[in-house]
């Protein structure tokens, strides 16, 4: 089981701030493909990867990163702090 968190408009499109997923996905990209195939709201949220960022266990990462050993995955748009 892996915790998946969504922020900002990604959260709004998917409709929940976080969920626990049972997945065999090897990489972030595999997880995205799995979710997109699952329901339309995921396809909508993950439609444009250029406007998405991913963090693995609270560290900014990349879509080709492996998920082995990862407990928390977060998807969000580019950050707008400051």
């Amino acid at each position, binding site marked *: 089981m892996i915790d998946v968190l969504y*922020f900002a408009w990604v959260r709004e499109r998917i409709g929940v701030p976080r969920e626990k997923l049972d997945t065999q996905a090897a990489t972030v990209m595999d997880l995205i493909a799995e979710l997109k195939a699952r329901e339309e709201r995921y396809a909508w949220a993950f439609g444009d990867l250029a406007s998405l960022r991913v963090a693995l266990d*609270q560290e900014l990462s990349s879509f080709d990163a492996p998920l082995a050993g990862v407990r928390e995955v977060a998807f969000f748009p580019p950050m*707008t*702090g*400051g």
Partner: protein
Amino acid sequence: MQVTVQAEPFDLGALSNAFAAQVGGAGAVVTFTGLVRDNGGTLAAMEIEHYPGMTEKAISGMVEQAMLRWSLIDALVVHRHGLLAGGEAIMMVATAARHRAEAFAAAEFLMDYLKSRAPFWKKELSTDGAEWVAARDEDEAALNRW
């Protein structure tokens, strides 16, 4: 170093004074404060979402980097989340160094990194509805100078 992420407003004067009072050996303190722009009166409020846990970790990482790179004596970052009105202070940075060049550079570095690498997302609530603030290419490009 001090990193605080909070919903409540902060007292800029009190924090600046307390910071400057405990930086023995410093010859320069630079503070920067970011405010909510009211967009000519059309902004009703700004909502700031963040990623509890990662936010504190990411900011602490930036501050540690700045402390080392510019040999800072101390640094402070306060960043708010939640609902803010136009004109309210969103965040502040303070840096203390022996000389002003280091204090200014470190404050600018922290500002550039906070903009694009601290997990905050701003949403503008206006008279026409609500809209997520898009990240700007210039902000991402600004990281290259460091």
